[in-house]
Each structure stands twice: as structure tokens, then as C-alpha cells.
């Protein structure tokens, strides 16, 4: 019985590794300039963890096969150095593995979080509120007008609480329900939560960042391929979380300018 368990264990381990090795499931297309780094990090993690996993399972299988059904008087071997050394060795082994992944991945992380947005990036503000995303472009003056939360009125489409009659900077602000961006242009996304936690997740861009009420967080990215992609909320925010999404439209520069002009007329 134990030998059967040992064999089954090893077979399951190998069977679960096969689809990963054969790339049966491919990640979604990568349309971002830093996407390659993230995908590489993912692959490195898979290899490291995969090798350790298979080694551990096969070793377990061997031990079960070899040492099951022994006589009660058989001698029990000990790990050289005793239990403390065993634990110490495990900590060092796993620790080194995790450290290695951290070192390999530091470039991907630093690229996103330790590098500020470049000075000629295009700022766009995004507000996440139960249960939709709304976006604001600063308009030709390049400035975002002040937000007055007491003026927020969804019935009249004033999602940000702008007061263009009294704030000149708000006059040319363009508020949209879709994030339109030109391709190959760095976007500086300024994130604002209207009520509770939400999260901005575009899988093709390989970016994922929580909105935290009260914190001014930002992201920067460059989209490299024209198309329509989903932005989904990936932090449980209430009963409408399942339906909370918006679309990212990556367009050529002339199409983007046409789109922005059209949106400006709908204000």
C-alpha cells in the first residue's frame, strides 16, 4: 500500500509539472515595455520552485518506498547533526531560494516602483469608486482643477466634484469613463480612491496596484500595442465588485487626439 502511495505521489508531481514545462497555458499578450521583465521573473520563479518541488516530491516518494513496512526493531537513522541542524539547513536552503528570486526580480520591481515617471510622461487621473472607474485628463492647460467632494453628483455626470464655473483650471478638464492612451507614450496614472479600497489591474500591461483611500498613489506605464483591453477592479470593494471594470483603449497618436477632442465636446 505504501509503495503504491509512493508511486502515485511521484506520478502526480510529474503530471502537474508537465503542463507548465510544455507551456500549455500561455500568459496573455504583453503590451507593455516592462512586461518582458515581469514574465521573465515569473518564468524564473516557476523553474526554481518547480525544481525544488519535484526534488522534494521524488525524495518523499523514495523515502516512503524504501522505509515503509520495516520491522519494529529496525534502526532509525538520524539527520547528521540532529533536529536543529535539519531545521537550520531547511531555513538556509529555502531562504537562499527566496533571496535569489528577489535578486533576479529587483530590476522588474525597481523599474515600476523605484523609478519616477519620466518628465514628459502624460498625466491622467483615475478615480475608483463603488463601482466604476472614471478618468480625468488635464486638458490643454496641463493642470487638473481642484476636487470638491461635496459637489460630486453622479446624476449630472460630475463624478470628480469639479466646479468649472469657479475654478479656471477645471474648465478644460476632460472626464471620461474609458482610459484612452496613445501607444508608445509613457502614462503617469494618478490614482485616487473615492470611498474604499479598489485595485487597478490590466493583465496585458502587467500592472496591478491597489487604491487606498487617503493615499495619492501613482503608476507609470507605456503601452506598445493598439487595442482594447480590460481594466478590472481586483480588490473586493462591495456588492458590485464583480461588475466593476473599465476599458483601456490604446490608439495611434492621431486617433488618440481625435478621441480626446470628441470627449471634450461631451463634457
Amino acid at each position, binding site marked *: 500500500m505504501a509503495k503504491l502511495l509512493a508511486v502515485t505521489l511521484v506520478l502526480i508531481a510529474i503530471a502537474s509539472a508537465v503542463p507548465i514545462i510544455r507551456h500549455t497555458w500561455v500568459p496573455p499578450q504583453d503590451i507593455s515595455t516592462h512586461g518582458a521583465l515581469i514574465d521573465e521573473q515569473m518564468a524564473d520563479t516557476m523553474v526554481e520552485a518547480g525544481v525544488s518541488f519535484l526534488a522534494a516530491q521524488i525524495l518523499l516518494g523514495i523515502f516512503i518506498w524504501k522505509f515503509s513496512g520495516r520491522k519494529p526493531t529496525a534502526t532509525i537513522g538520524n539527520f547528521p547533526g540532529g533536529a536543529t541542524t535539519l531545521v537550520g539547513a531547511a531555513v538556509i536552503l529555502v531562504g537562499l531560494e527566496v533571496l535569489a528570486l528577489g535578486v533576479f526580480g529587483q530590476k522588474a520591481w525597481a523599474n515600476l516602483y523605484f523609478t519616477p515617471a519620466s518628465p514628459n510622461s502624460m498625466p491622467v487621473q483615475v478615480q475608483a*469608486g*463603488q*463601482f*466604476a*472607474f472614471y478618468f480625468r485628463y488635464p486638458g490643454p492647460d496641463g493642470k487638473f482643477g481642484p476636487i470638491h467632494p461635496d459637489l460630486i453628483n*453622479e*446624476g*449630472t*455626470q460630475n*463624478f470628480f466634484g469639479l466646479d468649472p464655473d469657479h475654478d479656471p483650471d477645471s474648465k478644460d478638464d476632460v472626464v*471620461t*469613463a*474609458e482610459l484612452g492612451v496613445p501607444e508608445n507614450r509613457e502614462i503617469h496614472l494618478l490614482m485616487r480612491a473615492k470611498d474604499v479600497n479598489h485595485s487597478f489591474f490590466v493583465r496585458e500591461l502587467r500592472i496591478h496596484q491597489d487604491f487606498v483611500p487617503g493615499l495619492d498613489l501613482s503608476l507609470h506605464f507605456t503601452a506598445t500595442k493598439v487595442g482594447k483591453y480590460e481594466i478590472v477592479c481586483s480588490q473586493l470593494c*462591495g*456588492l*458590485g465588485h464583480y*461588475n*466593476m*471594470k*473599465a*476599458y483601456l483603449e490604446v490608439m495611434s497618436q492621431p486617433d488618440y487626439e481625435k478621441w480626446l477632442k470628441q470627449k471634450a465636446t*461631451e*463634457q
Partner: protein
Amino acid sequence: MKSGYKFAVTLSMLSLLALVMLHSGQTVSAAAEGKITGTVKLEGTPPHQRPIDMSKDPVCVKAHEGNPAHTETVVVGSGGGLANVVIYLSEGLPPAVASQVPSQPVTYDQKGCMYTPHVAAVDVDQHMKITNSDPTTHNIHPLPQPGSGNIGWNKSQPPGAPPIDAVWKTQEVSINVKCNIHPWMHGYMAVVKGPYAVSDDSGSFTVENVPPGSYTVTAWQETYGTQTQKVTVAAGKPGTASFTFKAK
């Protein structure tokens, strides 16, 4: 024998009289039912109604293919008629008439990810039947003023869900209604007492079942607020009231 006969006749006559008197206090005879008709107009240019971007829910986008939805804060028909104005009798109603509640429920539908009607009027204690005609889930959330006596609630309705039955306990003009899932959806429920009407696309309205008397008629519009007028209704002679709101 003769005195007994007299007694029987007197008793039956008195009973008949009592019955007639009792009855006449409660019902308003149909022959005396009157009405108030009129129109509501807007003077000046109405504010620009903005198109609504429903892209977050492709079901809603599909419902408006080729015909984008717009905000409905001021709806003006041809000829300057102002729609969605609630007309009700704020003063002058006898208590018996004011507490009469129509047995027909007022319908409130979610269609094309918009509320239809945008403004609904309903009596205190009159039932409302709230339906979802869209193939997407809505979560209707009426927001009465705190302390008004009406308690707010919200309820999800997936496609195919049964209608919601709602009743309001006190007069409130008006209760804001929003959808928790689709932020652009917005409407009103005006809870009044007695007969009411809501103006149509041409601005005209007819308040039915108004007993003869003198009344203060109030018109309420979501952007422009209220206006009042004194109207007299006589038997066989309907009252008229016309209102003109000024666009700012």
C-alpha cells in the same frame, strides 16, 4: 297595531337616513369628481444634457447602440413643454381624500440601464412595483432624507428576478434613487398625499379625481424646485393651472 306599524316605518326611515349620512361622509360621488389640467413650460435655453458613457457594462452599451443615452435633469419637448414635473395638491384636501390610496401600483422599471420613468409620483402607502427589464443585474437604492420618516433600502435584481414591492410611509418630494452598480443611473420618487400627476413630454398634465374645492397646487422639478398656484375646482368645471419655470 297602528302604533307598531308607525314605529316600524319611523325606525326604517331613520336607519335609511343614518346609512345615507354614514356613506356620504366616506365616498366622493363620481358625479362630483373633478380634475385639474394644465401645462408646464420652460422659459429660456435648457441646460445642455450630457451623453452618458455606459462602457463599463457592455449590456448597457448594446441597449443604446446608435442612440446614446443622455442625462435627464431638464427634459424639454417641442414647444417648450417641461416634462417630469410632479403636480400635487399641497393644501386644501379634505383628510378623507388625502388618505385615499389608489389600489393600482406605480411601476418603476430599469430598462437600458436607465430608470423609466425618470420621475415617478406615488401616494403615501401606495404600492410601487419595481422591475428589471435588462439582462444585467441592477441594485436599486432609494435615498430618502434622514429623519423624513422614510427608511432607505437597496436591493439587487438579477435578470429575471421578481418585481420589488415598495411602500413609502411619509410625504417626501422627492426621494433620490440611484443604482449601486451603474453610477450614472439616477431618478426620483415623489411621495405625496392625494391626487397627483407628472407632466409628459409636451409639458401637459391632468390631475384626476379632484373633489370640488379650493386648493394650492404645487409643481416640483428636480433642477428648478417648486412653484405654487391657487386653483378652484367646481362640480362639472375642471380647474386649470399653468406653470412657467425660468432657465437660469
